[in-house]
């Protein structure tokens, strides 16, 4: 069990992990994993820029993340454009870090993750967003289910434009919040790897969501249990644990009967 001082970071990290696992399952089902990379990178760029300008981090990160998502949604290219946008974000952070000392510190914080220093503000943000995610879950699922159909067409009406925009805004907010709390590499690992591992294990959409949660939470707990006693930064440990768990999930299907 974490000590009292670490209860808040532990709670914030766990809640964010669960939200990110849900977002990751959605991105996997939509086939939009490259978009997540680009979006996360620009959320981090927004955070670094905010530190240079002495502006609050969250609105700037959300604004840049939202702008990137709007750009990516307008294009049918699901690989090259997101990759180019991701690289542009990486370049922007590197340039900012090279020219401003504050940016250099902020970039390091986004890369390593600041989970151990998460305070009540992060915990409340994670709890509030978790609650919003619960309330939106059925609508998010509807969008992701409908995204599977094309080129077939259902006779029932698809999700409204309002619901689709809500889903996009929710994804942006989830990735920005996750990157802020866990650090960019850990957030992306939580977003992408549990959903990929779960896709090997699940027998249905519901199973995919549950396995994604299970793998993400297990990864968080294991990484927490390893990084604290060994005095290691949390984010890289989480990345390695998430890779190992996803790899195990992949391997397990080879030895599954039937």
């Amino acid at each position, binding site marked *: 069990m974490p000590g009292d001082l670490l209860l808040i970071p532990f709670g914030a990290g766990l809640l964010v992990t669960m939200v990110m696992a849900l977002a990751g399952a959605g991105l996997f089902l939509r086939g939009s994993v490259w978009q997540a990379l680009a979006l996360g990178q620009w959320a981090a760029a927004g955070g670094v820029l905010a530190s240079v300008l002495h502006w609050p981090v969250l609105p700037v990160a959300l604004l840049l993340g939202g702008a990137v998502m709007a750009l990516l949604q307008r294009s049918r290219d699901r690989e090259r454009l997101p990759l180019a946008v991701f690289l542009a974000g990486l370049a922007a952070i590197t340039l900012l870090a090279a020219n401003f000392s504050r940016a250099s510190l902020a970039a390091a914080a986004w890369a390593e993750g600041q989970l151990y220093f998460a305070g009540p503000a992060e915990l409340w943000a994670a709890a509030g967003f978790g609650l919003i995610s619960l309330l939106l879950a059925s609508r998010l699922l509807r969008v992701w*289910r409908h995204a599977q159909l094309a080129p077939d067409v259902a006779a029932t009406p698809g999700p409204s434009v309002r619901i689709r925009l809500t889903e996009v805004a929710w994804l942006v907010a989830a990735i920005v919040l996750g990157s802020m709390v866990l650090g960019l590499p850990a957030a992306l690992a939580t977003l992408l790897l549990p959903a990929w591992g779960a896709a090997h294990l699940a027998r249905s959409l519901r199973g995919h969501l549950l396995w994604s949660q299970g793998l993400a939470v297990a990864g968080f707990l294991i990484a927490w249990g390893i990084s604290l006693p060994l005095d290691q930064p949390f984010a890289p440990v989480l990345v390695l644990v998430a890779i190992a768990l996803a790899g195990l999930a992949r391997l397990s299907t080879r030895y599954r009967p039937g």
Partner: protein
Amino acid sequence: MPAILDARSVCLGFDRPVLGPLSLAIPQGTRWALTGPNGSGKSLLLKAVTGQARVHRGQLALAPRTRTSLLAQDHARPRLWPLSGADWLHAMGARPPQHQGIQRLLRQRLDQMSGGQWQLLRLAAALSSADTDPPEQRLILLDEPANHLDAAVRADAIELIAALPPGATLLMTSHDDEFLQALQLERHALAEYLDAG
């Protein structure tokens, strides 16, 4: 019978028109097989009805409250797709049919089905989509439904299509003469509906 689909001098395509002008009216409750050689525009017409292709000129109108479902000619499956047959029917707004062949697929993952099973499931979903609505409001578009059907599921597919409730309108394309014959559909060559001149 009033027309459920009424096309008047329509020119269809994607970025530019490639078919038309074309005029046809499909009466409500009929079962049509649209015939014609490859590339004649049969699939394009079905896509235009569902809004996946553009109407560049003319008028393409559906009767009020029409609910349209489409089985596209092909649906490539992702290599890793953690959805079950039941998930697919749910996504299509279809209740699982009582048909035994479909019941067997409900718990199976989509990426682990054979090509024939996948086609059969998609067909069942397109036929049952919004099937709680009055049949008269339903327009079912099937683009080459006999594609990928192996001998094991071919009879199931014919059975499912033949079981459509009276009043529902069916418009399908197929190159498979035996399949069309088994369903006893009215055959209409698309070329006959191209406007003269």
